[in-house]
């Protein structure tokens, strides 16, 4: 296993957790060469502003907490934060939310905003067949449209091609209505890197990378959740 990934997993395990928090999940992904958003975990409003200035506005801000598995259930996400004043204010509102909803605020993740087609990449584990990889159209409505395709991990480049052919929305990637065609090559490489990660980290029970932004510039994982067995 990649060393950085092993370190993160050891930390999660040593704290008695099976839920891998977003920044941790992204460190694991990064160790396998999977592109993630530029970001940092901040522990003060000042630090958040500093990071936001470095990344450039607008930014995304998210709560980092071992108790917050579904961020939309809390006031735990703010997108398109435009300036210094709002960053500081939102930081403080997250602190208040942590007190109100009674969760531990480990920090606030300040990330770049990314554009592109929202996709989802995920994994689950079948008792007979082992890890499955899912690719599909991402966002909040995944469970409504279920425009997704599954394969056993590891996947080959040909498998990814065939998965894309099963996803209706994947036509949006091929330069639909004057958009530039998305970088399918990097998307394919990303899925193959995830396969490698799943082979090496056998105890990933569930994983959702959603959204993953896919555009002509490449692929970027904007949110990541991992549950260990």
């Amino acid at each position, binding site marked *: 296993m990649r060393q950085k990934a092993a370190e993160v997993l050891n930390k999660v395990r040593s704290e008695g957790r099976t839920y891998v928090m977003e920044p941790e999940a992204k460190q694991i992904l990064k160790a396998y060469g999977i592109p993630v958003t530029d970001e940092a975990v901040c522990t003060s409003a000042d630090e958040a502003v500093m990071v936001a200035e470095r990344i450039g506005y607008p930014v995304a801000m998210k709560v980092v907490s071992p108790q917050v598995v579904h961020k939309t259930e809390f006031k735990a996400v703010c997108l398109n934060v435009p300036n210094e004043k709002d960053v500081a204010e939102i930081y403080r509102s997250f602190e208040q939310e942590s007190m109100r909803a009674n969760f531990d605020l480990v920090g606030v993740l300040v990330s770049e905003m990314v554009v592109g087609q929202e996709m*989802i990449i995920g994994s689950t584990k*079948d008792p*007979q*067949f082992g890890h499955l990889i899912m690719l599909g159209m991402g966002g909040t409505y995944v469970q409504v449209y279920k425009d997704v395709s*599954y394969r056993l991990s590891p996947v080959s480049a*040909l498998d990814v091609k065939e998965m894309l052919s099963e996803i209706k929305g994947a036509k949006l990637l091929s330069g639909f209505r004057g958009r530039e065609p998305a970088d399918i090559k990097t998307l394919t490489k990303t899925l193959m890197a995830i396969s490698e990660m799943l082979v090496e980290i056998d105890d990933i*029970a*569930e994983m959702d990378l959603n959204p993953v932004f896919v555009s002509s510039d490449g692929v970027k994982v904007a949110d990541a959740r991992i549950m260990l067995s």
Partner: protein
Amino acid sequence: MVDPHIDAIFNPKTVALIGASGEEGKMGYVFAKNLASGYQGKVFMINPKGGEILGHIAYKSVKDVEDDIDLAIVVIPAKGVPAAMKELADKKVKAAVVITAGFSETGPKGKALEDAMMVEARKGHVKVVGPNCFGIYNCNIGLNASMGIGSPEPGGDISFLTQSGAYGMAIFTFAIDHNMKFAKIMAHGNKAGIDDYEVIRYLGQDEETKLICLFLESVDKGREFYEVAKEVTLRKPIVATKTGRTTDAARAATFHTAAIAGSFTAYEAAFKQSGIIFARNGMDLVNIGKGLDWQPLPRGKRVGIVSNSGGTGVEMVDLCEESGLEVREFSKELRAKISALIPEYASSSNPVDMTPIWPKYVELYSKITRMMYESDEVDIIIPIVLHRAAMMPEVCSALADMVNDCLKKGIRKPTYVCWVSTRDSLKNMDLLQKKHVPCFDWPERTARTVGAIASYAEFLKSRGVSLDGR
């Protein structure tokens, strides 16, 4: 090298029947009768009472048999099976087919009995098929070690592995009714000592097997199953039905990916990725098997349809498109050639609609079929043989001869007949099927079958496998 223990199941030189009986109506009698008819190897009847069964000496125990025993068929009551298995192990029997029910399928008590049996089997390296199974066949050596009646014809090349006994046999007899022939059949019931992938690997290596059909309720060792299947499908097709697709495995999903996945998702992925052709039900399994066994693989997805009914032709176009096939309009040149044969008001486009001019059907079905064989606009030929055409034996014979003539000339292109007719005309279907021109009932089944076969051909092509000679 093939697995010698599985080979002992299908190609035994000697077979012992544990629980043989001369009394009609008993399971031991059914098996004794089946083993005594057609099988060329030596059969030893085992019954503690001794005496004679169907002209064979009955031995009181396998210990009394001097010859080595390759295969034992066990039909005695469940509680006696573990002890019998110990005797088989001591006798160094290579494999045992345990027909007896009353094991893990009945609950914890039965499970304990099955475990006890398996302890003895493993100690003595006896490969176990079953328990709670229908039995096995090797049609090419006349071996019927099953509850099935009579010995099937030799010369077949389809092998069939089924978890369900009775439904498996219903599928098998339905296939035989449709003039299909089999090589090897195994019903493995509770699968206590044998995994699907071991049998698939064996059949993949078996020269007498050209096509593998599976009827599955569950798969154990899914990964091995997937890896073996992926390798075998490149050489020979595997068609599989899997029942129990809708009962969702109880799972505590946290995220989307796991929540959307049902219990069949992993199977579906494994089938797609390994090139296993998925049949939605037992009848589709037979139909797809028939199409694969008798006709060459399609080189593409372009279908040419010739019909004596415009309505059926149009329905066929819809269903073909829904099954991933293409029905394109023929070129001017091809249309002109076809138009010269049919009335002015008939359609020479695709589908070709001959209209009700039945005196000319004999000539037209075969001539238009030949034109499609000779045309590079068509990869798959579907003649719709409906009512009056199906009632004319001369139409069916002429069409069968034309298909075989074109295939003999080396045009590797499949013909699949869509059959829509009355019950009395079924004997005419035999005229086609006896000459290996497969017939499928009605457009829906035809389109679905052809779509599945064409996807397999596509799978092979995309993986760089040549279709030469296939």
